[in-house]
């Protein structure tokens, strides 16, 4: 369903919204919203990382999803650091490191190693835990009232509570959006919200129902592909909780050098038939400049301007990181790359001929 339809529906929805009033009886005065706000705020964090230049903000939002203190947030340039700072609404500051990311959902899971009593219990149980009962996820429907918790515009600092907005689910639909000229990677189901959640720093915030049950994660700043309007949306938690659990379990953990052994006969970029653009920065992106004919790279149809994002599910942040990672791969082994070409991501496997 397209966004313009959503706007048409809005007229109906604001009236229908009265229905959900019955869910929260105390609509006057402080009432239940304040209680929800106070208890839910404790589960949210303000995140501070890189940025602050060229229109890139150095802050975003996140929330706890495990007793062990894991934080779910969106994957963005803010996280381009070994550790970022997470600040809870009671003023506690902690370091958070990126455990792993899911490039298809554009989410990231951070570890604080600080156990917390305040988290959204949304992760599926571990497969080996036979006794565990599956978590009950809350889903929302068109017309439901929702609350959005985020540190939009970085308004709150330190022990201040992040911002609270109320809204109504205008539509549940498929994301069809773009960022700049690029189509967004995630194209799955979303909640469209009538509250203005699409603001700097809001991405990674929590969307809950009026009782504080988690419904989804506020998405990154995007425009609708056709209407070109800024889109206020959240990705339903059911779309991301499985991936988050896999990241926590280490399925795509950023492997660190000390836990592995370098290969005896490491593979090199020359072996693969790849030449990168000149390495002039501390963190030059791993853009391919040239692909040698009759090489594993050409066989996999790699081309100039492809950006290498992952090598064997290890996130590559620079050319140096790529060269380092290749040291752990033997010349005899296959190399799986996730590359970004224009608007699309594709996974390719390079094999020795």
């Amino acid at each position, binding site marked *: 369903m397209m966004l313009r339809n959503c706007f048409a529906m809005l007229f109906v929805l604001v009236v229908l919204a009265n229905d959900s009033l019955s869910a929260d009886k105390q609509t006057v005065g402080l009432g239940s919203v304040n209680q929800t706000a106070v208890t839910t705020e404790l589960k949210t964090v303000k995140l501070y990382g890189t940025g602050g230049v060229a229109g890139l903000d150095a802050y975003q939002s996140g929330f706890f999803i495990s007793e062990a203190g894991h934080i779910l947030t969106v994957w963005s340039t803010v996280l381009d650091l070994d550790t970022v700072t997470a600040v809870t609404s009671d003023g506690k500051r902690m370091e958070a490191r990126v455990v792993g990311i899911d490039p298809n959902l554009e989410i990231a899971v951070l570890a604080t190693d600080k156990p917390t009593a305040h988290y959204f219990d949304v992760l599926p149980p571990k497969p080996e835990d036979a006794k565990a009962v599956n978590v009950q996820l809350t889903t929302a429907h068109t017309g439901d009232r929702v609350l959005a918790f985020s540190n939009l515009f970085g308004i709150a600092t330190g022990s201040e509570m992040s911002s609270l907005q109320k809204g109504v689910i205008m539509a549940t639909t498929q994301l069809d959006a773009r960022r700049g000229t690029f189509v967004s990677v995630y194209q799955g189901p979303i909640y469209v919200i009538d509250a203005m959640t699409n603001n700097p720093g809001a991405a990674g915030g929590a969307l809950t129902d009026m009782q504080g049950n988690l419904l989804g994660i506020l998405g990154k700043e995007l425009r609708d592909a056709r209407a070109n*309007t800024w889109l206020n949306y959240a990705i339903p938690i059911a779309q991301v909780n499985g991936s988050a659990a896999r990241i926590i379990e280490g399925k795509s953990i950023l492997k660190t050098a000390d836990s592995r052994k370098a290969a005896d006969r490491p593979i090199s970029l020359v072996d693969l038939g790849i030449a990168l653009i000149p390495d002039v920065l501390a963190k030059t992106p791993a853009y391919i400049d040239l692909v040698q004919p009759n090489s594993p790279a050409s066989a996999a149809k790699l081309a100039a301007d492809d950006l290498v994002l992952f090598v064997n599910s290890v996130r590559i942040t620079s050319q140096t990181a790529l060269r380092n990672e290749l040291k752990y791969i033997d010349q005899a082994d296959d190399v799986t790359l996730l590359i970004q070409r224009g608007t699309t991501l594709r996974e390719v496997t390079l094999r020795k001929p």
Partner: protein
Amino acid sequence: MSKAESNRKPLNWICTCLMLLACNAAEIRADDAKVASVQPAGAKDTASPVDANVVAAEQQRIAAMRKAAEATVAIFGLDGGGGGSGVLITRDGYALTNYHVSSACGDHMRCGLNDGRVYDAVIVGVDATGDVSLIKLLGRDDFPIAPLADSDTVRVGQWVFAAGNPFVLASNLQPTVTLGIVSGVNRYQYPAGTLLEYADCIQTDAAINPGNSGGPLFNFASEVIGINGRCSFEKRGRVNVGVGYAISANQIKQFMGMLRSGRLVDHATMAATVSTDDSGKVLISNILNSSDAYRRGLRYGDEVLTFADRQVNTTNDFKNILGTLPKDWRVPISFRRAGTTQTTLVRLAGVHTEQQLIQLVTAELGKNAPQPKGKPGRPDKPGEEKPADGKPGEKPVAPTDEKSKDAKEESSRAPLPGEPDKKLVKSMLAERPGFANYYFNELNRDAIWTRAQTLGDLTKVDRRWVLTGKLAGEDTPVRIQLDSVGATILLGSRTVELSFAEAMSDAISKRREGGLLVALRAWQQLLQVGPKQIGETIYLGTAPVYTATTTVLAEQPLMDVLQSAWYDTMVRFSFPQDSGEIRCIEVFGDASEDPVEVYFDNYREKDKRMLPGRIRLQYGIEPTLLIDIESIAFSAEEPKPK
């Protein structure tokens, strides 16, 4: 996102927002029948479509909004330019708005209420730093009002609504009402330049758009919790993005007396900065040694615990508290050094000098008009003499510029209904540097003097005043003689003399009984000649006076303060807001030194005159002398032998 893109679509968004606003309005104004006919999704029983609680809650909301709308003001410039919102807070027409609204309109504006009538309004006082203006609507003494709430009780998640004139839509004078919740409290928003600092403000997701500025944010009891004035805008242009800020009602209460003074009011600084250390303590990181805080013992590295009786846990807490305090207030601060906690009082200086404030406010006049359309604002204040710039062919657009012609016409006939009453307005406007409208300063100053006169006229008594009594709790006799050329105090066997030919400030610097004589002479002279003759006297506003020796702000009454330039000093006389008794006299000599403070209480009647029965002398916060006065006698002065 490229820049070009972000600039491309503002119109779309304005349209969308207008649509959303219209929706909100429709929701609110829906009559009962309409609401009852709505079928809730999933309801099985068609006979009772809506939960009774929902209907009741909605009725309550409609009633609250109806009541609130009556006190909401739509503000327009004289020629229809500018525009914004406001709210009436007193029956005789005092109303609050934003400084950035009033400055765009000039000192005479037109205000519409939802009864369909338009009233003239004049500027009263201006707090440019806090973005608040007090205006007065004319023509009625029974205006509908909205009370100011205790905004410290506002909580995140609380339902609120804004009423006002977004996009200057209220052409029928019916305010637009937008519903939302409180998104955050105790927010600090940095000043734009040195003006428009929003400290301790309320953040809401109720739609606040250009034109809502100056309008009220209400709770569901139709009480004003704040004045809407600022939004976070970004890529969508100047339309609401779910983040609006309201100046808290409690900040406005603290500034109310200052605003009524008709002055350009300033915010406070402690002349010290704080920062948070690694362990989260808020420490003094810088302090001017000429400041009152320094004189009261505050030093670099002291940990601030409370300020103005509020907890300080973060640097933002401190800025939030400081940002809501007026210049010239004195507030308690408690701090810890080496494990010892102490509490003292600090006098707050101004963020700006008076000249800076005048320049900033003059520069803002007629600018920043919240205009949704392409109509250029007129920077000239109506009724103000406009220097002829001599450009041929450039005729003034509005008739208000042709002052002399207009004035003649106006004076010859009464204004028609709905027309501006320029004669009345002109009589209530007085220009003077440092003031938004000096008329209201004189009004208050004269009212206080009238109040003081009800305690007994001392303007015609003999010129020598002799006060006799004892030191409190002792047998030591005290005799004070006040003449026009000098004064003496006899304490037991000790005599201190003071000639008024000497610099008064020197007597204050000595921190002895001479300062008492200085203050008593100021008191005597005020009562003998009145505020107009003693020296340049203005009404400063209201400030807490620590009549008791406790330092708890909540227990200190706000008093009316008159301030006089007198000899080489500045004198402040403080009166309770409901009485003519002078309770405190402070004489400021050297700016980097403590003033002398003299407190009066135990007022008693003698010969149909109310006179103080006890006098306390104090420098800093330590009382140095407490005198029980037994009698005050008036006699003729002997000619002083040369």
